[in-house]
């Protein structure tokens, strides 16, 4: 932080794959929005991202939050609360949030006033997360950015039963060997992730629109399949990867 701007607040979301930094003004409007790969030294990356950023108070979230707290003496908040707050900034009536990031996924239900009512998270492995899709895209020879679009063009649903990244990779290899269509395998993989995400959502909330955040929300096939599977409205914020950082920035402002 190079300067002191009385009215500015920042939130930083140090995730397993990427770091996002959002700076807001005192009305909550986004002034600056940055992103970097987390790499193996998250604090160095965070420091680089913050170079040139000015704010009055900041808050950290994501897996690296406690490391950040030690290095920068900034308060922290969990991803759960940060995503809940950030989702509300885009959709003030939101009461269900699905966040699928690099290594975890979570479904959050909110009270009418925006507080977290209950949440569900995936367990310790990366099944059903961005990491899973990334590895599967690579196995099928797709760029991650094109993966969802290709899957959307599949002519039929193909079943991939394994959720574990390691097992699913072998299953995909054997489907390729059987001569199955690459796009249909891709769609099958998307369906398997959505099946799991839908289960998490159903455990926390039964109806109404769902705000979909995190990097995986950028995948059009995931959004489509989620709508289909749950017959509920799915709302994707303009920049779904920055929702956690925005939430943290807003919480920093509200705490000041």
């Amino acid at each position, binding site marked *: 932080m190079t300067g002191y701007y009385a009215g500015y607040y920042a939130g930083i979301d140090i995730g397993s794959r990427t770091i996002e930094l959002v700076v807001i003004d005192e009305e909550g409007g986004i002034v600056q929005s940055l992103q970097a790969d987390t790499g193996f030294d998250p604090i160095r990356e965070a420091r680089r991202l913050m170079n040139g950023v000015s704010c009055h108070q900041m808050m950290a979230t994501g897996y690296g939050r*406690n490391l950040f707290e030690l290095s920068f003496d900034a308060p922290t908040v*969990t991803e*759960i*609360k940060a995503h809940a707050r950030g989702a509300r900034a885009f959709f003030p009536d939101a009461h269900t949030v699905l966040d699928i990031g690099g290594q975890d996924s979570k479904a959050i239900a909110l009270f009418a006033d925006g507080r*977290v009512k209950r949440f569900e*998270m995936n367990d310790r492995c990366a099944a059903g997360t961005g990491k899973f899709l990334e590895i599967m895209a690579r196995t099928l020879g797709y760029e991650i950015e094109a993966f969802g679009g290709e899957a959307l063009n599949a002519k039929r649903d193909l079943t991939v039963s394994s959720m574990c990244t390691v097992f699913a990779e072998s299953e995909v290899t054997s489907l390729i060997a059987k001569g199955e269509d690459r796009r249909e395998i891709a769609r099958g993989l998307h369906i398997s992730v959505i099946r799991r995400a839908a289960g998490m959502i159903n455990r926390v909330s039964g109806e109404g629109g769902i705000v979909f955040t995190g990097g995986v929300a950028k995948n059009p096939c995931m959004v489509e399949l989620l709508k289909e599977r749950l017959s509920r409205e799915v709302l994707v914020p303009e920049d779904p990867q920055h929702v956690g950082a925005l939430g943290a920035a807003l919480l920093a402002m509200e705490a000041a």
Partner: protein
Amino acid sequence: MKQNDIMNRLQQMTDENIADIERAKSEGRSVIGFYCLYSPTEMAVAADAIPLTLCGTRNDPIAAAEEILPRNLCPLIKSSFGFAVTDTCPFFRFSDIIIADTTCDGKKKMFELLSRYKATHVLQLPQNQDPETALPLWRAELARYKTIIEEKTGVAITQDGLRGAIHLMNRERAARKALMDVNQLNPAPLPGSRLLEILFKVGFLADKEKGISLMEEIAAIAGNGGLGATTIDRKSGKRILLTGVPVGVGSDKVVKIVEQAGGAVVAFENCSGYKQAFTVDTEKDPMDALAEQYLSTPCSVMSPNTGRFDLLKEMIRDFSADGVIDLTWQACHTYNVEAFSIDEFIRDTFGLPTLHLETDYAESDTEQLRVRIEAYLEML
């Protein structure tokens, strides 16, 4: 007396414990090893034998256990078995016989294998607590258990012996309860990790009187404010009740994470904690009283397990809990399934959300657990 002095004295007792057991054995007393709260330890005491709790709360021997047992089994079962096969639990080594119960599927099948290493008697525990059908079975099972202890120890168990044993064990349970009840104060004088360590270590002591006097002393001092309030108030200071599977030193990572996140674990509704806070009726025939009291232990292996709901209701109120964390060891089906009903019950009765965690003894998911626990404390 400071908490450090208490812990030093407890450590000293723990150090002397092995010598105490060796001395007793050399004097001809038998040692009976126990795994589960359903087995009345009074039977051992009545036969002038030493009842010892067996190890099963550390991750270290699990790899050895997995050479024989499937990996997808509860860590408590794997740890218990691992300690036995690696001969790293002194209490297992000292035991002349192991008393176990047909509680869950994993345990009863593990005990079949365990009997290859040590004489093991498995009590046939009924699956419900019905006074008409289950209790007579259990009463008969205790009669068989009594004979086995008599044969093993060469000591005849008398009515008076049983009464004396019940009296001693009631005193120990009363001391444990008094110690745990100290945390009904707000703020709670004993951090959860400290309380857990005391209960855990006292549980292994062969000389019951030593443990009783230490627990009575701590309870008296803490009750008078002598220990000072817990220093945990950094972030939330929320009072958490931990329910579900047993925890001990080595399997207490959830307690530690709650404390690191600024919460206070004030009470344990599990068989290493408040499920032991019962009194055996001294008016009834001792065998009948033991059968009745022990069968009523509210573990999830019972179907239905209404006692756990009653106990939770009482404890949430008495300990002024702000939140409830329901802990399940991986592959513990009975607690895992019951978690749904527990969550529903606590929401409906108290309007409190619960946090259900499923994990094992390994540290690999610490950060994932931390997110859940911190988010839960934020919610309260």
